[in-house]
């Protein structure tokens, strides 16, 4: 009744599901941790209570998001072994050490200082507390560094040798493994995406409260900060995305063919398909709205440059076109919409109505979750686009999975779906509830909030050395 193909498909769905869910939280917390560090730094520098209020406001949200990121992340660190055992055995010697470095240099850093960041302001004083916040923020970045290096190595493997037992073994230089060809592009593009995601979430919340009360100083400050980010970082991100795309064209041309919907080769200039419905059976894009030669111009900087299509790639090595094509368009579309908001906010600033332009605020609210959608779409583009490989060109997804029965994987997938949707939906709802509360002066922190009165008592000197009487 069940065969390998079913178990494989279920394992793939499970990985895609758990990693997509997980990715939402770090995409938020990478940016939010840095935002918190900036807010606390501004508070220490200027002494303005407003920054401390904003810090405390977002800290409560950060705590909930971070907890969800941690628990969904632990799942990921074990899923390589549970569901992708052959891949783990083969690629472990190369990517295992990078993941170990992530744990050693990032996870411990975040987790070690998180407690102080959340509950320790009264105990360690301002400067040490700021240091703890910076360590948490730094940890989130270092974590991104290592895990994206792993992912990039799987996409563009370099610096390895193949052992007698079929394992990938590290070559003489780890630099070649870590800084593989797609890594710098992927790292910058992804981390920038995380910052933009946070900026739009913060901007959406600020706009929400401005619509209610445009004199709310806290809402004005967070909205203004977020809109600066949108105006300055969205164009940078579009530039980085383009550079990443060119890098992909060089190393994974089949992925770009799927993104572009180029089933056929174009010997004298390929069109840019803005919209259309890919039909993989007939190998064409229906109802295509296209700009002639633009794709060649973007990808080759020459409108007449020939561009190969999927007809040059063996059938067995082609990625599925539909999901890649759609996800790519969603990501790019949202990226330009973000740029639009950024420019709109500049106009608002120039006209002195940044805090009064209702339609700008409504648009910012609508775009509040846009970063999350764009991040997931981008992830889909790159991950589906590199199929059918786990280690690009070398190890097929079909040859990577654990020897598990389909019912076992099906049961675990079902459990993940039920638990993630219920637990993380509730968590998201708590975050939305926190966001719905207007930021105000004398914002409470985590340790002295009304619900935590039974919490950690301030003051470190009551019990020397933690000993009993």
């Amino acid at each position, binding site marked *: 009744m069940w065969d390998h193909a079913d178990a494989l498909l279920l394992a793939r769905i499970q990985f895609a599901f758990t990693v997509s869910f997980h990715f939402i939280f770090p995409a938020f917390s990478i940016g939010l941790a840095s935002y918190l560090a900036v807010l606390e730094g501004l508070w220490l520098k200027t002494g303005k209570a407003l920054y401390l209020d904003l810090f405390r406001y977002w800290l409560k949200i950060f705590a909930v998001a971070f907890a969800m990121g941690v628990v*969904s992340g632990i799942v990921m660190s074990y899923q390589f072994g549970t569901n992708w055992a052959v891949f783990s055995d083969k690629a472990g010697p190369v990517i295992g050490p990078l993941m170990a470095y992530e*744990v050693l240099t990032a996870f411990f850093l975040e987790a070690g200082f998180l407690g102080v960041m959340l509950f320790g302001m009264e105990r360690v004083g301002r400067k040490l507390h700021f240091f703890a916040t910076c360590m948490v923020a730094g940890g989130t970045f270092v974590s991104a560094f290592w895990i994206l290096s792993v992912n990039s190595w799987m996409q563009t493997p370099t610096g390895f040798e193949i052992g007698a037992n079929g*394992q990938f073994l590290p070559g003489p230089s780890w630099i070649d493994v870590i800084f593989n060809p797609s890594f710098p592009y992927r790292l910058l593009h992804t981390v920038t995406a995380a910052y933009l995601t946070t900026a739009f979430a913060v901007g959406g919340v600020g706009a929400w409260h401005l619509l209610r009360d445009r004199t709310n100083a806290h809402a004005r400050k967070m909205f203004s900060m977020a809109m600066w980010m949108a105006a300055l970082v969205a164009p940078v991100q579009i530039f980085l995305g383009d550079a990443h795309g060119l890098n992909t064209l060089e190393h994974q041309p089949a992925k770009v063919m799927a993104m572009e919907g180029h089933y056929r080769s174009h010997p004298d200039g390929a069109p840019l398909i803005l919209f259309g419905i890919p039909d993989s059976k007939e190998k064409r894009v229906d109802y295509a709205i296209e700009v002639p030669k633009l794709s060649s111009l973007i990808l080759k900087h020459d409108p007449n440059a020939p561009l190969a299509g999927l007809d040059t790639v063996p059938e067995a090595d082609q990625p599925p076109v539909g999901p890649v094509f759609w996800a790519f368009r969603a990501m790019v579309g949202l990226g330009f919409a973000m740029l639009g908001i950024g420019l709109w906010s500049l106009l608002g600033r120039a006209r002195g109505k940044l805090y009064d332009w209702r339609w700008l605020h409504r648009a910012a609210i609508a775009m509040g979750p846009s970063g999350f959608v764009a991040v997931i779409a981008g992830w889909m583009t790159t991950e589906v686009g590199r199929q059918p490989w786990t280690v690009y060109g070398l190890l097929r997804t079909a040859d990577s999975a654990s020897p*598990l029965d389909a019912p076992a994987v099906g049961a675990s997938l079902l459990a993940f779906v039920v638990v993630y949707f219920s637990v993380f939906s509730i968590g998201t709802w708590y975050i939305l509830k926190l966001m719905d509360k207007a930021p105000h002066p004398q914002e409470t922190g985590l340790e002295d909030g009304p*619900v935590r009165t039974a919490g950690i008592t301030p003051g470190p000197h009551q019990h020397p*050395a933690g000993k009993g009487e």
Partner: protein
Amino acid sequence: MDVNFDLTVIWAFIIAFGVFAYVVMDGFDLGIGILFPSFKVGEGRNRAMNSIAPVWDGNETWLVLGGGGLFAAFPLAYAIVLPATYPLIIAMLLGLVFRGVAFEFRWRDPAHRPFWDLAFSGGSFVAAMAQGMTLGAILQGIEVSNRAYAGSWWDWLTPYTLLTGLGVVAGYALLGATWLVWKLDGTPQAHAYKVAKRAAVATLVLLVAVSLYTPLLDEDYWTRWFEMPNVLFAAQVPLLTAILAFLLFRALAKRHEAAPFWFALGIFLLGMAGLGVSMWPYVVPGEVTIWDAAAPERSQIFMLVGVALTLPLILIYTGWAYWVFRGKVGHEGYH
């Protein structure tokens, strides 16, 4: 080859250290979760939870190090053990999801706090039980052929694994109770003393049961534990355990505050030593040794540099975080 020999042994000890650090630190976290329903709603539960709120995330990171470290240093073991214990690992991960989010969620939603308290204790119990059963499943043997798990997906469920599962649950409860004895005062502390004594009895009974059961599983275990000359070394483990157990009960009876936790920890350390006697140098008993499973030398050296540079720092700042939150956990009107 000689260098590799040494590196592999070093890595086996690093992983063992990581596992021990995890078992000890998340052990008392999970133990508090397991004991949670026995604490009174309100002050008792709030303070029990607050005693670990600032450190639980750091404690759980050792689990990631254990998994990630095994992946990196012994990829073959990682690739065999995890599919063999698949349902247990998934159950553990889901258990950890529930108890992890409960730390934040119970404060965010007082109206549903009873539900999140249940998620906290249920998740902790499931995670502890799954970890204990995974240990049992490894000890009872895993079928391997051609570098992969070759058994069925129910092999992990036996009376023996249920016994080891309960043993770990009881042991974690003991760690949790003795931690609370240390961190609390007043009525909740008195309750923690009571629970600690019960958990200690349960832990020792199950420890003895597992110790007697294990040698019956396989002749090799019997040889390792009971035949000359091994017995001379191996017998020290139960002997020391008995001494520590005596000290633990005495410390609890005399109402010492910090000592019970350290004695409980000592018992865990001896359990780890016993595990070493049973398994060394296998990672999958009878099938895969640490040298079979080891990553190549280049991977080992690269990671060893990382461990040498970062582990001391990690221990320092983790220690600092514990130091910041030292002393009794506060409560209303504490000043």
